[in-house]
Structures are given as C-alpha cells and as structure tokens.
C-alpha cells in the first residue's frame, strides 16, 4: 500500500528522502514524520521498487529496512554501492535487530547510519538530520 501522496509534499527546496520498507504502516509513519519535519518523501515496498524510484527522481537520503521480499536490504545496498551515480547517497538502515557490523562489511564507503526499531520520532529525525548535514 502506498502512502498518501498528499502527505509527501514539501517545499521545492526540501531534501527528498526515499523510504524503503515492506510494511505499509512503517512507510506511512516515516513519510508522515518526514513531511512534518519539512522533508519531501517517496516510498517503495522493496529494493527493486526503490531502484525504479531512484531512477525517476533525485534522492538525498534512503531510509531502508533490511528484511523485505523480492530484494532484501542487503542485496539493495550491495547493488546501490556498485552504481557510481548512487554510491554517495546516505543510507539510514532501520532494522529489527543489531546487525550494524554485518552491514558495514558490504555497505561500502558511502554515508551510513543505523537505528533499531522501534525508534522514536526525535531519534529518527536526528539521525536523518545528521546524515543530510
């Protein structure tokens, strides 16, 4: 289920965040929170849909879940980091378990952040702000 496009509108100068998660309510929450904080957001249900969005629009940050159908977060990161045009996009990985060390092994050198679910809005926004700084 896609979140309401109306909720993703933001000023033209706003940074765009791509929310990738298979859980509709998580996508809604992240998009809603980002909109309130003044960001523009897109969402995708899995890795392959995320690549479609990346090809269509410039993205400043990706909020990524790791366990997803079709294309997992790990596969998405590996592919993303092998594409020169996307290699520097900051990634904020939001997972259900602490696997930061494992992710670092294949995440390359692009900006990377982690948050452990459930994560409160202030912490999430702070992590977004730091990665976009």
């Amino acid at each position, binding site marked *: *289920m896609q*979140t*309401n496009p109306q*909720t993703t509108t933001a000023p033209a100068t706003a940074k765009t965040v791509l929310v990738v*998660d298979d*859980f*509709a*309510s*998580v996508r*809604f*929450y*992240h998009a*809603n*929170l980002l909109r*309130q904080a003044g960001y523009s957001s897109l969402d995708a249900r899995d890795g392959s849909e995320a690549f479609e969005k990346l090809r269509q629009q410039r993205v400043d940050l990706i909020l990524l*879940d790791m*366990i997803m159908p079709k294309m997992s977060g790990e596969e998405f990161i590996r592919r993303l980091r092998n594409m020169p045009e996307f290699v520097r996009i900051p990634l904020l990985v*939001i997972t*259900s*378990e602490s696997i930061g060390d494992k992710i670092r092994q294949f995440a390359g050198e692009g900006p990377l952040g982690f948050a452990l*679910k*459930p*994560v*409160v*809005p202030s912490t*999430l926004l702070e992590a977004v702000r730091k990665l976009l700084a």
Partner: protein
Amino acid sequence: MLTSTNPVNGAKSWLAQARKLGRCAGRRASVLVGKLRPRQAGQFSGDPTFDAISLLSDVDNCQAGLLDFGKETDAEFTELARGLSELSTRFNSIREQAESLDNLLHQRDKENILATAYTVYKSSVDLVHSSMGIAISEQQQMGQVELALTHACRVRETFTRNNLLLRIITMSIRMEASRVDPENQSIFLNVAAAIAEIDGKIEKTTAAAFGRIEQVIEEARHEREALHGLEQSLQGRAQQSIDKLQQELADYKTSLIPCAELSCKVGELFAQTGPITLQIITSLQYQDIVRQQLEHVAAGFEDISKHLGGLDQSCESTSKPELGFIHHAACVQQAHLASSRTDIEKAGAEVSKGIGDLLAIGGQLIENFTEMEKAAQAAFGRSRISELFKHEIHQLTLIADQSEKANSKISRLVERIDEVVRVFSHEISSHEFEVKIVSLNAQIAAARMSAANALNKLAEESSLASAANAAATADLTGELQSCLGKLQGIKNDADEFMRIVTREKSELETNAARVSAQLAGLGSQIGDRSSAVRREFTSVHQAQNELLGRLRFGELIETSYEPAALICEKLRKATRTFALPEDLSKEGQRKLAAHQSRYTLERENELHANALGNQARPATGSFAGMSAGDIDLFDSVTPVTLPEAPPSAAEEFPPQSASPIPLPPTTTQPPAAKEDLGDGIELF
C-alpha cells in the same frame, strides 16, 4: 587286414599294428588284473582306462551338484538382493526424514516455519515501531495545537477590556442622562440599558466560549498526558515482548544446534552407504557369472562322462586319444572350478561383509537419527514457545490499539473546537452587530438633540469597542480555525494510519496464530514420523541379520566344489600318462578348445565392465548428493569396474597363450549392443 605293396612300409605298418594290438591287449589285461586286485577307496588300479571309467558315476553326481549349486546360491543371492533393496528403501526413508529435519533446521522446509516465525516477529516489531512513532508524533502535534489554543486565549483580555469599556460607557451615558433635559433622559437611559444588556451578553458568551476553550485545552493536555503515560507503559511492555520473542527465537536456534551437528553425522553415514551398496551390487552379480561358469563346467563334465562311457566301446582306435582328452578336459574343469570358487567365495564374503557393514551403519544412523529427533522434539516441543509467541504478538498488537484511542480523542477535540468557533463566529458577531446598531441609534438620537455631544461621543466609543471586539473575534476565529485545520490533519492521518494498521494487525494476528499452531505441532509431527521410520528400519535390520545368519553358500561351496575338484584331480591323475599334447587326437583338440573358449568369459567381463563404466556415477555418496537411497537395485547400473577374472589355478594347464594345445582361432563376434552384457549376464 595286413596288406602292403612296399615291403619296408608294409613291415613298419605291421609293426605298428602289432604294437597297438599289444598295447590294447596289455591294457585289457591290466584292467582285468586291476579288477581282480582288491583296492582301497581312492586308490588306482594302474589301468588308466579302468580307473577313469570307475569315476563315471562320481562325474555324473558332481555334474548334478554343480547345477544345483547354481540354483541354490541363486535363491540365496536373490534373497540378499531383495534384502539390500529393502535396506536401501529404509535408508531412503531415514534420509528423507533426516532431510526434512535438516531442511527445517536450515529454513528450507516447504512451510518455512522458522522463517515465517521470524517474519511474524519482525512484523510485530514493525507494527510497534510505526504505532508508537505515529502516537508520539500525534502527541507532539497535539501539543502544538494546545499551545496555539493557549495563545488564542490571550484574546480574551481584549474582550474583557472591551467589556469594561462598554460598562464605563454605559455608566457615562447614565451620568450624562442626569444632565440632559428630562424629556431626553429616557433616550440616554434606553441606550445605556441596551449597551449594558449587550455587554452582559458578550461577557456571558465570551466567558462560555473561553471557558470551553480552556476546558478543551485542559482536556487535550490531560488526554495527551494520559496517552503519553499509556504509550510509555506500552512501549515498556512492547520492548519486553520484543526482547522475549527475540530471546525465544534465539534460544530456538541454539537448541537446534545439536540437531544440525547430528544432521551432519547422519549425512556422513549416508555417504558411506553409497559405495558399500554399489560394491554389494557388483558382488551379487558374480553369483550369476559363477552360475554360468558352473553350467559350462557341468557341460564339460557331461563331455567327460560321455567319453568315459564310450571308452570300452572300442579300444582299437580311441583308447589313447580319449584318455588324453579326459586328462586335459579334467585339467580345464579343475582350473575353472578353482577360478569360479575364488570368485564366488570373494563375492559371498563381500556381500555378507557389505550387508553387515550396512547394518552396522544403519545402527549408527538410527542412533544418531534418534538423538537428532530427540533434540528436535525438545526444541520444537517446548511447551511455552507457541503460547508465548501468540501471547507476545497479541500484546504487541495492543500497541496499535492506542492509535485508535488517540484517534477518538482527536475526533472529540475537533468537535469541541468546531463548536467554539461556531460560538465566536456566530454569537459574538451577532452581539457586536447589536452594539453597532445601538451605537448608531444613539448617534442618530444625539444628532437630533441640541446638547448631545457627549452621547454622540460615547456612542462612537461603544462602536469602537465593538469594532475592537469584532477584530479580536476575527483573530480568535482565525487561530481556532488554524487549530481546527491542524487537528483535522492529525485526524486524517490518524484515520489513514488506522486503516493501514488495522489490516496489518489483523494479518499479524492471523499469522501469529498460524505459526504458533505450526510450532506447537512440529514436535509431535517429528516424533510420529520418526517413530514410524525407526520401527520399520528396526524390522528390516532384524530380518537382514537373520538372513545373514542362515546363509548357506559357504556350505554349498564345500559340498559342490570339493567333490567336483576332487573328481577332476582323480581323473587327471588316473590319466596322467596321457598328458602329452600328442596324446590328443585332432578331434580331441577341437573339443578341448571348445571347452576352453567357452569358459574364458573374458568377453562377458569386458562388456560388463564397459557397461558399468559407461553408466558410472560418482561412487561417493553425500547427504545432499547420492547415497544408498539413490540406488535402485533393479533399474540402474552400478559404477564399479569388475575385478579381473582370477588367474587359472591349473597347475598343469598353463594359461591359454602358453598352452601347448593348438587352439582354433577364436571366432570374431560382432560387438554387442551396450545393453547386451553377454549371454546369461544380467544386471540387477
């Protein structure tokens, strides 16, 4: 008849005839003497013909014994092959069961239970994450609305000030009334009364409206704090549930580690069964080869028997060549008996040992499998995992319920603020309008009077106060509308979120119930299936042990080969004076060559080996690859090269290439089709 044209030649011919007759007479005499001379069993009389003929009945008996050996060992080997097939089937059952467990351990099972359980756990975390996030976000937005409402309440000071001003104006008008003419006093007093009445209304309305706003603020604050408390409490509980589930799943994995280790051992044992089974199958095929060899030996014995039977028919022309043939034929049969005995003994030993080894491996397999099954049952059968999973997931879904509560609070706030806006925008506006009308009327009245400047001035002031109130009302309404808009936005988001989360919560609870049921059923399922497999294997294990215990082919070898080999030896010894190649007639040479070429089996062995080699598969089995269970005894061909035919055991009969007996050239046979392994040779 002694006739010759050449005297020398005639003399030679006569001499030869005489020698022959003499020798014949001598032999006859020897036979007679031998017959008359008392002898011990096994001793020879000294007359080769007599001695050879005396063995005739033994030769016939041995011929029958050899043919019986083939039949009886065939029955035993067939039973062994069936047993091996049965054993393979049971190994297959264990392997399937072990694979099914292994798949479960490595999350390759069809239903993917552990992975599904983890997905459900992950979904519950996601649900908590989004629900709490939205709840906190809503609280923050509600706080902003509260602030805005509190800010809006500051307008109340303007209304209070204006009310005070209107009261002063009222008093001033009344004071002015005492100064004017009595006929005009009523106008002043009426205006003052009208303003006082409207002022009272305004005061009442604003008091009620602001009272409601303050009430809304207080209520919102209270609800927000209550929601925060609920959220904090649920967050704590959710975190506990998440930790419990995570710990439970981790324990689950840990408790399955022994299963995985045992699964590896089971896999290694299965890998060992492959080559053994293949070796057994190869050895089993030797029985058929040996049976054919013995049939040929029996045919050879029949030839010997015929020759022995015909010996005393005519000693004139056949005695020497016949005995020579019997000597050499006995050597050939003896050599082939020794060779085939080596084959059958080796094959029998290999089959027995192989099946014994398989049974031993089967025992270990069952032992490891039982341990694996116990470990799996212990892991899956833990009583609390299923219930705990269901319970904790349910607890987590309660988090989503708070969104519903928050949503209803927001809806109520929206209604209340909407009511306040309505009050301000309608009632106060109407009062302001009344003030304006009164002020206007007062100004008109003042214009008609000669000394009514004061009234005019006061009416203007009240009109200004009314305008100030109108402006304040407009501000307040604007702010309230803004708050209403924000609240409406929060409510819309909350509605949308509720729609999503209700569906997800429902799916999550359904999945949790399904996974819980699957987890609960796993232990007993594994137990039931494994018990059946174990029972069946134990039965086959016992049957095979009994079969091995009653195998008679060792005894059959003794009773068939020993007498036959002994007869050959006796025939050979009895006719040893005819061992030279020149003692064989051309007819004897031809027959003997037929005997030999018939027995070599080289072609069959070669074809057999080629056929096996062509269809060979890797001999080493593995848990994931081939194992005994993959071997279909009665359909596939085994990848084993047969051992070369054992060398001839004949001490007096050298190998074919070195044979002093001239052999006719071997007829070139057309190459056999791949499936044709030679007459009588068949693969299982």
